[in-house]
């Protein structure tokens, strides 16, 4: 039994250690380039397979290659929402600053991927349906997810006090994540009311391996891209939130020896003062 409790203590200590912005900043120094490299490797391999190697689909010809971009961003938009809601829930329960930072930074990335999924989805559907927008189940739930993202971001930017803004946005994210499955469910039922199952059934084992492997590469590559951008934005937010703290000052201190961007008047005044001392 004490093995379990020791593991538990280690996990919670690591968990709380990650909670402090400073620890996060030092850890993310190493993790960010790793995510960036993984993204580049995976997505390049994936796109090579997707564009060059995968055979043309017998029914849709080459237009199905949009699938390798549409499915990863659609999957990622939902994944980012769940990550945002879990970070928000953890932030609310443990009052952890870093959890809120992660939630806020992933909202714009999620919105970007959702609009990407919408654009590529309508581009993919256009040659088949003949119209740019079709009330298909998945496209509609993507659209609603986009509105949820805008709602969360609008609520965050509506408050002046940052601490209240974080917690209000966290509550909305948690409430939203409860309702997302219900929305998905009702839209599925609603779209089946209007027309039969849609033309392309993508995802799932129905796809031949030659199509599935590039899809998995692209999906993993995009996920690491999300991790990479999330860490970049989180580091920015940590720097600007903790700008008064000593460790940020110490971090940026050596760079003041060659201050760029300072108007020349202050520079001379400074050097003039040194000269006289």
């Amino acid at each position: 039994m004490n093995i379990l409790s020791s593991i538990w203590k280690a996990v919670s200590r690591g968990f709380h250690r990650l909670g402090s912005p400073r620890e996060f900043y030092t850890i993310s120094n190493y993790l960010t380039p790793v995510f960036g490299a993984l993204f580049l490797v995976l997505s390049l391999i994936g796109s090579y397979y997707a564009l060059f190697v995968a055979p043309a689909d017998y029914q849709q010809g080459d237009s199905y290659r949009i699938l390798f971009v549409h499915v990863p961003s659609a999957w990622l938009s939902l994944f980012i929402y769940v990550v945002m809601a879990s970070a928000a829930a953890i932030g609310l329960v443990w009052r952890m600053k870093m959890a809120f930072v992660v939630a806020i930074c992933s909202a714009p990335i999620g919105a970007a991927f959702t609009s990407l999924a919408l654009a590529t989805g309508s581009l993919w559907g256009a040659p088949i349906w003949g119209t740019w927008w079709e009330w298909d189940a998945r496209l509609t739930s993507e659209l609603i997810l986009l509105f949820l993202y805008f709602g969360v971001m609008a609520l965050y930017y509506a408050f002046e006090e940052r601490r209240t803004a974080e917690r209000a946005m966290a509550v909305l994210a948690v409430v939203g994540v409860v309702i997302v499955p219900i929305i998905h469910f009702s839209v599925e039922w609603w779209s089946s009311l209007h027309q039969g199952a849609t033309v392309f059934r993508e995802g799932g084992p129905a796809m031949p391996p030659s199509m599935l492997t590039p899809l998995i590469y692209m999906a993993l590559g995009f996920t690491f891209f999300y991790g990479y951008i999330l860490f970049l934005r989180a580091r920015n937010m940590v720097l600007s939130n903790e700008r008064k703290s000593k460790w940020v000052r110490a971090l940026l201190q050596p760079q003041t020896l060659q201050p760029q961007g300072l108007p020349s008047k202050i520079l001379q005044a400074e050097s003039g003062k040194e000269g006289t001392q």
Partner: protein
Amino acid sequence: MNWSEFFYMGGYAFYVWTAWGITAFALCWLFLQAKLSNAKIKSEIIRQIAREAILSENNADSN
């Protein structure tokens, strides 16, 4: 592997390449925005440190 047939994409060239183009553009935009705001925040903090250094010097001179 003749390139012109590859770019033709079996007649769907416009849709496939705009889709991939939008994706590439979105990824680069996210990346650039993150990098630019990083540089902006760092220079802001550095300028603030420099300004406070000057202020503290003036106070040190004055009293």
